[in-house]
């Protein structure tokens, strides 16, 4: 048992080293790690808070994006070390609906009541959601609702009274 564990540990370290060295892919003009993806297989990005504490950074998941999968990924949080979740603890998704190219997603009240506040944290939460969901074919804008209600703002900075487009300015990264 002990030996097996050691071998498993060594293998894990080897894998982490490989990941760290970078199995890289070019995505939207930037080099990003795609450690979790088989070469050639389909994958989609989910955005989490980057280690530079300013930007969003994609983590790639195998498969084809759909709303349920992306929301599940966001709720689950990142798998790569260094990234942080964009949703506060205990949030759940109450439901979502699509009208044309606009997706309406209702979160539980925890999205607000457990949110730390601050404009940077608010930006990361809002566009972590919006940027991830607008990766799905056919979705161009996303409106965030709380307990099925339209809200003015999440923590007092961003106007959430209307659907939002993806934010490219938050995608700049220190990864390159």
């Amino acid at each position, binding site marked *: 048992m002990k030996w097996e564990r050691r071998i498993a540990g060594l293998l894990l370290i080897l894998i982490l080293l490989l990941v760290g060295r970078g199995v890289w892919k070019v995505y939207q003009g930037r080099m990003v790690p795609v450690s979790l993806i088989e070469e050639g297989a389909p994958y989609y990005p989910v955005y989490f*808070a980057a280690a530079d*504490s*300013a930007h969003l950074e994609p983590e790639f998941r195998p498969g084809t994006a759909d709303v349920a999968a992306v929301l599940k990924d966001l709720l689950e949080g990142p798998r790569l070390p260094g990234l*942080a*979740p*964009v949703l*506060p603890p*205990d949030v*759940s998704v*109450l439901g979502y609906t699509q009208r044309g190219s606009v997706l309406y997603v209702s979160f*539980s*009240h*925890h999205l607000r*009541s*457990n949110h*730390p*506040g*601050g*404009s*940077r*944290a608010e930006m*990361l*939460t809002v566009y972590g959601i919006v940027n991830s969901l607008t990766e799905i074919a056919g979705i161009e804008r996303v409106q965030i609702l709380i*307990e099925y209600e339209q809200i*003015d*703002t999440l*923590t*007092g*900075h*961003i*106007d959430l009274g209307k659907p*939002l487009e993806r*934010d490219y*300015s938050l995608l700049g990264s220190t990864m390159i």
Partner: protein
Amino acid sequence: MKRVAAAVLLITFLLLLLAASSLAVERLFVGGIEVELEEPLEIVSGVILVPTWLLEKHFGGTVQISDSRITAAFADQTILMRLGEKSALVDGESHKLDVAPQRRGNEVLLPLRFFADRLGFQLVLEEDGKVLRLQKPSQVRERASLFERLRQETSWAEEPEPVEPVEETAQGLSDIVYMGGARSRVFIDLQSYTGYQTNLLTDPPRLILDLYGVEGGPLPVVEVDDSLLIRIRSSRFDEETIRLVFDLNAASGYKVTPWADRGLEVEFNHMLYAAGLRERDGFIELWLEASHPPSIEAIYLEDPQRLVLDLQDTTLLASVRELPAGYERISRLRMQQHSPEVTRLVLELAGPVTMLPLQEAGPGRYVIPLFQGTAQEAQRMFDLDDFEPVISPDFSDDTKPVFGPQRGEDGEGILRGVIVAIDPGHGGSDPGTIGYHGSFEKDINLAISFFLGKLLKEAGAEVVYTRDTDVYVSIFERPEIAVRAGADLFISIHANSHIKRGTARGTETLYRANDLVSQRLAQLVQAELVQAITLVDRRIWGRDDLAIFNGSTIPAVLVEVGFLDHPDEEVLLRAEGFQQIAAEGIYNGIERFILEYFGKGEGQ
């Protein structure tokens, strides 16, 4: 055969009767707090049934019944049932019920265990099923429930009376203390909390105060019954939230003040019941019926000429809001709730009027004599030595109001003629982000804003604050205030937080995207601020999604001075010296921008 059938029926009936009389829960505790039951809870086929009000009051749900359809909505789930049907639908999934919802007179009874399971409560029956306890077995409450068990074992044997529930909730809401006074002050003793939100409702009048991040149970009802406050109720709203409800006689304004080390203080406004004008002894008198001698701030405004009296911390309850007055120099009295804390009385004037000090004219009645003339005329006429008008327009040298906003009359200021709107972020029920050690962003924003305002005024600029007290102003109202004041610049002051608390540091400035003027203002403010306070330079960010930018075209920036969720930066942000230096940095940026953009202030 008939006899046997009759006997069986009788025995069944007797058994049912026996079951009904012996199986009933007489006392119910939710999270350690006893719930008042008007009638014992019924047990049918071993399932405890509860009336809908109990779910609403003690589990934070809303239950609607139309025809046979029952919709119970809770914070994170909606449960559908039908009268007489043994199944429930939760978020689209069907569940089996042991006993169907049923009617009893006007009430509808629902199976308690199903709701308790869905909401994460454990049911514990004691004393042959006469006492029922509902508890949440989450890890944080492990200690509390152990304590609860010990308490039960020791105290139940000695005295059957339930023990005061206060000790048990020491981890959360420890006490609600009514302190009284003219403003019905109440102190909420909290061990710790992460935030709060208020909501004033009118029908019936009540103030809802939700306390976030509070563990433990609610407290018994605090009966007050003073002129405003009837009682204070508390209940657990969800796993993180305790909800306090202040039942009121009138929907009065209020103020919530967090105490430095723990707890919150709630104060209600004074009330203005009625006001009017009358003539007496050559004076016009403005009379007021109020719950307390009002504290008044008065200013003169021109075009049209009017005298504005702001009654501080006062809620307007008068039903008549506008009174025409046929006096020589006073043509009309208007009243309005200017902000949640200020009642504004406006006297429309047709000439100089001098306001004399407030006098008490009986219990709850106050008068302010108004002399139809200047202060000098009043003095001459009454030959008063120590005559001190509260306010009077100085019409002697020019027609400019002297009690209007500061206009940098010294004429020396480098920024003379410039109007700057300062927007201290958040306020009132919105504390903004909460610091690592618990300070509120709104307080720090306001402090830095005042330092900045002082520097700007000293340089001759006119300053307009979107708020200058701890009051909630919406992000849509804020730019409107700046537009109305004709502001040249909009400077919003905030402190930041990262989603992963405590991991980010530094200063950043946001500006209206695709607006080169705002961008330049942001560059200069950011550069000067970083130079002054030497925090990490997180650069400037163009944003097209901030309501405070989109509500006007005034060059606008939002300065995030530092990260309040970072322990080191919180220490700095709380320090007055640092606030002053930050204000100086921002000021230097503004000054550079004005000199560069407008060439110079009008004063030069």
